[in-house]
């Protein structure tokens, strides 16, 4: 079984801090990681490979340094890595990104299954999976938390709903977006990681010409949506900050709660 896994390198946004003086985002020292949901997609792919055989191709789009995410995916068990990297891809919205990924998948060719994380923690859109599926004309199942059965022609999975779940049979090839509940991702294998960082590692970098797209179709120019303004959210509350001794702080706070008839 040939599986393609879509992976994104993201800043570890849980580490984000604001500059106490300016209120600006402090970006220094923030690590880049494989997007958490994508790690679960990788684990699912490696699991399927272990039971069904086949090959895993990991596909990512990003700046040159995103090759680290691809290497890490190889260390987890992927066989081949492809990074789509070109200045022309920068500033892409999900429309342009899904087109770029879709074109690359067409170039990769044969596959039975495409796996991706439900959403990336830096954008939280959850749009790439379904958009890629539509571009490739594949059935999709999103929010997958259990893979029950995989045959040559179809698979049965469970997808999470707000108040329960659905068991769904999908014709193959199909695209799944997965959530964290699906599995516990393995750690990258150290020996494999060293190999994956070597020059002869099976990682290719493709640019716009390699996948046969024009600059105006991708990146910011190929996007349909554009950010026209960004702003810090208004602090709507005038906070009163209590510092000092714990007992005294709690006494002051409970006093406030009583004043407002909250306790």
């Amino acid at each position: 079984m040939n599986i393609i896994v879509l992976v994104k390198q993201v800043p570890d946004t849980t580490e984000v801090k604001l500059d106490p003086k300016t209120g600006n985002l402090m970006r220094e020292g923030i690590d880049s990681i494989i997007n958490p949901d994508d790690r679960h997609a990788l684990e699912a792919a490696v699991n399927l490979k272990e039971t069904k055989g086949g090959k895993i191709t990991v596909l990512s789009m990003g700046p040159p340094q995103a090759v680290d995410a691809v290497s890490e995916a190889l260390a987890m068990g992927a066989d081949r890595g492809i990074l789509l990297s070109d200045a022309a891809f920068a500033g892409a919205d999900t429309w342009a990104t899904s087109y770029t990924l879709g074109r690359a998948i067409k170039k990769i060719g044969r596959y039975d299954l495409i796996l991706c994380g439900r959403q990336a923690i830096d954008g939280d859109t959850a749009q790439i999976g379904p958009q890629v599926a539509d571009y490739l004309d594949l059935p999709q199942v999103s929010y997958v938390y259990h893979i029950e059965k995989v045959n040559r022609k179809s698979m049965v999975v469970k997808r999470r709903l707000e108040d329960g779940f659905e068991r769904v049979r999908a014709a193959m090839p199909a695209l799944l977006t997965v959530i964290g509940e699906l599995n516990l991702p393995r750690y990258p294998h150290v020996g494999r990681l060293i190999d994956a960082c070597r020059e002869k590692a099976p990682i290719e970098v493709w640019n716009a010409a390699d996948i046969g797209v024009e600059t105006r179709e991708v990146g910011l120019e190929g996007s349909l949506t554009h950010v026209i303004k960004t702003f810090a959210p208004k602090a709507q509350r005038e906070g009163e900050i209590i510092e000092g001794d714990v007992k005294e702080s709690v006494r002051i706070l409970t006093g406030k709660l009583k004043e407002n008839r909250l306790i």
Partner: protein
Amino acid sequence: MTVWIETANCNGCKRCIKTCPYGAVELREGKAYILEHCTSCGACVEVCREKAVLTDAEPRTIPDFSDRKGVWVFAEQRNGSLNRVSLELLGKAQSLAADLGQEVSAVLLGSQVSGLAKTLFGYGADNVYLAQHRALKDYRTIAYTKVFEELVKEFKPNILLMGATHVGRDLGPRVSRRVGAGLTADCTELSIDPEEGILLQTRPAFGGNVMATIANRYSRPQMATVRPGIMEAVRKKNNRGNLIKCRVSLTEKEIGTKVLEAVRETRGKVNLAEAKVIVAGGRGVGSEAGMKALFSLAKAFGGEVAGTRIIVEEGWLPVERQVGQTGQSVRPEIYIACGISGAIQHRAGIMGSRYIIAINKDPGAPIFKVADWGIVGDLHQVVPEMTRAVSQSMGK
């Protein structure tokens, strides 16, 4: 593409610096300077009034969309009951449509669901497009996408809104790709730009701590998914609308998926939506054992325990207790944030709270900016102390 500064034109107004989502522009000798980690996203090009930020991207002409009319809402239903978010969206659609001088329409798909049209009229729909077919009984991506594709092509709506539910977030992107329209996910604010007449879509973005307003100038319909619980459903008494029945042809083969079973799970019945007091933990809680103190405090208040995404990812709390952009939005009387730094995604889910109390070691944590009261201190000491104090007061 590349972005660069024409220093002769730059007046040092810093507009580009404030706009850059990546902190990749700074002022050097009174002029804007683009740093190496610029991603060429182009946000600065848009805001510069001096034409000092230049790009090699070709200017795009905005197509004529004057034939695109109407604000559409996907009326999401399951087993014949409407999702609340669809009514909330109709509320918002009423004000957007009024600003545009256009009509509100609901799109209702399913099998034997025509009875819901009345409710949709009652919440502001001028038209209900009804597509009924056995194959539409369960929500299935490709079936619903195909119906939307046909409706959009025939009736040419200007705006299309869906709830950011598990269904809406599955269907929205699929429809957007199919009809060639841009889509903005998980919006928290929508309005019409008075000059351009376009939909302004605002959402938390760039991994937190910034809000971004996004426009969809180059395609129609302007599509957005909207978080449940944010917009307000508005009743429109005695509203009568048009029911437009649409013909559907679908085959099982083209749909590609089949729902074998749909199960409702109560999963321990955590009801964050109706909790009066929520005690929430973040990374600062440190361990699963650390959550215990939070449960004690919640018990003292008669409230519930919740957590941030990181807490859920660590496995310290189940996902139904997650609050924030990817979790639930809550609006309790008191929200007590313990060891939560306050990334925007989390804040987005708690701003409806009446009072917010923050407990954090770091006085610079952004959570203090949205708190009514904050205690700077170690939550492992503060929380047990609070539990004692609250139990005492409540006991009296």
